[in-house]
C-alpha cells in the first residue's frame, strides 16, 4: 500500500512537471500573441500560421546548414522579416478597424499562408532533428529522467517570459505600445513615430511566434495547419490570464498545462473511485478533452476579465 502510494506521488510529481513543461511550451507560442493581441489589441488569428512558418524556416535552415543553432539563428530574422512585411502590407491597415474586420482579414491570411507553405514545402510533414548535444536526458529526482531538450524549452520559455515582462511593464517601448493601442494618433502628436514602433513590435511578435515554432519543431510535427490547433490554445491561455497581462498569460499557460496533463492522467483514476469502471472510463474520455475549456469557462465565470485583469483596460 505504502509503495503504491509513493509510486502514485512520484507519478503525480512527474505529471505536474510535465504539465508545467507543456504550459511553458504553450506560453512560448502565446508570448508573441500577448504582444500583438494582448497589448496592441489586434485579433490576430494568423498568429498560428506565423508559428508554423517559423517551424518551416527552422526546418529549412537547419537542413541547409546542418546545424540547429545556425538554422535557428537564420530562422529568427527570416520570421522577423516576414512579420515586418506582413505589417507593412496588411496589419498596418487593421489597427483601427474593429475586431471583426481583423478576424476576417486574418482568417484570409491563415488560408493564404497555409496554402503557400504547402506550395513551397509540400503537404508532407517535415523533420527537424533534436540538436546532437541536447539529445540525452538528465536525472531529476528518484529514478525520474527528463529529456534534456525539454529542459532547454523550459529555459527558453522562462527567459522569454522574463524578457517580455520587463519589456511591457518597465520600458518606454512597453508604455508606448499600450498608449498606442488605445490612442495611436495622440502618441504621434506627442512626437513618437508610433507606426514604426508598431511595425517593429509586430515583427518582434512574429519573431517570437517563429522562435516558438523553431524550438518545438524537434518535438512536434512540422506540417501545414500545425498552427491552427495551437492557435485556439494560445487564445485560451491569454484570455484566462487576462488580456494584456504577460504575467497572467504565463500563469495561465502553466495552469492550462498542469490541468490538462494532470487531469488527463489522474481524472480517470479519481473517477474510478466514484463510478463503476466502465462508466468512469466513459465519462473520463468525454471529459478529458473538455478540461481546458471547462477551466476557461470556470475562470471567466468567477473572474469575467481573466485571472489578472489589466488595470485600466476598458475592453
Amino acid at each position, binding site marked *: 500500500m505504502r509503495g503504491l502510494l509513493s509510486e502514485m506521488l512520484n507519478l503525480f510529481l512527474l505529471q505536474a512537471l510535465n504539465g508545467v513543461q507543456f504550459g511553458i511550451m504553450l506560453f512560448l507560442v502565446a508570448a508573441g500573441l500577448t504582444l500583438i493581441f494582448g497589448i496592441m489589441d489586434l485579433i490576430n488569428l494568423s498568429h498560428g500560421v506565423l508559428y508554423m512558418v517559423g517551424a518551416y524556416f527552422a526546418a529549412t535552415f537547419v537542413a541547409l546548414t546542418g546545424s540547429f543553432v545556425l538554422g535557428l539563428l537564420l530562422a529568427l530574422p527570416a520570421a522577423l522579416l516576414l512579420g515586418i512585411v506582413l505589417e507593412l502590407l496588411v496589419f498596418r491597415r487593421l489597427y483601427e478597424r*474593429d475586431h471583426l474586420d481583423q478576424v*476576417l482579414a486574418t482568417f*484570409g491570411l491563415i*488560408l493564404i499562408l497555409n496554402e503557400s507553405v504547402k506550395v513551397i514545402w509540400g503537404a508532407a510533414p517535415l523533420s527537424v532533428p533534436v540538436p546532437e548535444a541536447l539529445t540525452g536526458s538528465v536525472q531529476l529526482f528518484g529514478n525520474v529522467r527528463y529529456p534534456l531538450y525539454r529542459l532547454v524549452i523550459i529555459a527558453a520559455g522562462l527567459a522569454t517570459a522574463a524578457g517580455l515582462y520587463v519589456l511591457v511593464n518597465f520600458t518606454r517601448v512597453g508604455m508606448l505600445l499600450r498608449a498606442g493601442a488605445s490612442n495611436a494618433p495622440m502618441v504621434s502628436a506627442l512626437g513618437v513615430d508610433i507606426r514604426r514602433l508598431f511595425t517593429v513590435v509586430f515583427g518582434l511578435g512574429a519573431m517570437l511566434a517563429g522562435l516558438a515554432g523553431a524550438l518545438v519543431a524537434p518535438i512536434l510535427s512540422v506540417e501545414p495547419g500545425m498552427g491552427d490547433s495551437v492557435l485556439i490554445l494560445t487564445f485560451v491561455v491569454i*484570455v484566462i490570464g487576462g*488580456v494584456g497581462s504577460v504575467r497572467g498569460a504565463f500563469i495561465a499557460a502553466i495552469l492550462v498545462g498542469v490541468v490538462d496533463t494532470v487531469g488527463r492522467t489522474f481524472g480517470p483514476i479519481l473517477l474510478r473511485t466514484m463510478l463503476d469502471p466502465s462508466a468512469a472510463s466513459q465519462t473520463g474520455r468525454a471529459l478529458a478533452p473538455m478540461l481546458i475549456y471547462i477551466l476557461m*469557462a470556470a475562470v471567466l465565470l468567477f473572474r469575467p476579465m*481573466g485571472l489578472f485583469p489589466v488595470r485600466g483596460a476598458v475592453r
Partner: protein
Amino acid sequence: MNSSTTNIAPAHLAEVRVSFRTAGFAALAMFAILAALPLLTLVTGDAFVLVVATRIMIFALAALSLDLILGFGALVSFGHAAFVGIGAYAVAILNAYGVNDLLVQSLVAVAVAALFALVTGAISLRTRGVYFIMITLAFGQMLYFLMISLSAFGGDDGYTLPARSTVLGMPLLENNLVMFYTVLAVLVGAFLLARMLIASRFGRVLRGTRDNAVRMQAIGFSPSPYQLTAYVIAGSIAALAGVLLANQVEFVSPAYMSWQRSGELIVMVVLGGMGTLAGPIAGAAAFILLEEWLSSFSQHWKLGFGLILLLVVLFSKGGVGGLVKRLLGGAHHG
C-alpha cells in the same frame, strides 16, 4: 477608442438605419431569384444548382441567426456552430429512436437549443468583448467533444440518416425541389421574423445596448435579459438550420460544430456586411460560391480564397454589401 463592449466600428452601426430599407430590397431581390431558380434549372437542365442553392440557404439561415446577436447585439459568439450541431443531432438521435417527423424534430431541436442557449448564455453574458468570444467558444468546444465521445451516434465517424425526415408521415423532402422550397420558406420566415424583431421594442433595446450599455441602464433598462433572449432566439434559429443541414446531407457529424465552423459563420456575416439582414445571406452565398468556383480551378484554391477575403477587408468597409453599395453610390455621384 475601445468601446466598453466589443470593438465594433460605430460607423457600421450608424449605417444600419440607412441600409435597412436597401437591405429589404436586396433581400427581396435575392429571394425572388432563389424562388425562380428551379425554372432556370429546367432550362439549363442542371439540377445540381438546386443542391448548391439549398446548401447556401441553410448556411444563410445560420449566418442570419448569428447576425441577430452579432450585428444587432454586438455579441460575438464564437460557438454558434454548436447550435447548428444541436439541430443536426436532434434529427439523428430522434431518428435512432424511430422519430422521423420533421416537425417533431424541429420542435425538439429548438427546445434543446433554446435550453442550451439559456444556460450557456446566462453564464457567458457575465463577460464582454473578447472574453465573451472565448467563453462561447468554450461551450461550443465542450459540446463538440461530447458528441465526438458519443459512440452510440457514431462519434467522430458521424451518423448516416437512412432517409430524410418525413412531413406528416410523407417522405416529401426526398424530392430535392420540395427540400429546396422548404429551406427557402424557412429562410424567408426567419428573415421576416428577424426583421420584425429588429424593428420592435425589443429590437430597439437590443440595438441600444449595442451602442452603449451603460446609457441603457441609465434610462432604466437592464440589458442582460434582452441580450439573453436574443441569444436564445438566435440559437433556436441556428438549430433549425442544423435540422435542415442534416436533412440535406443525410448525414450528421460533430464536424458541424467545430470551432472552425463557428469561425466560418462569423466570416460569412462579416463578409456580407453585419448588422444588415441581407448581409449574412449574401455573405453565405459569396462564401460557398467562392468555395465552389475557386476549387474548380486549382488545388491551391484556398490561396485565392484567402486573398479575396483579405482584399474585401482592406478595400471595403461593411463587407460585400458595403462594397456593392459603395459601387452603386459611386455611380450615383459620378
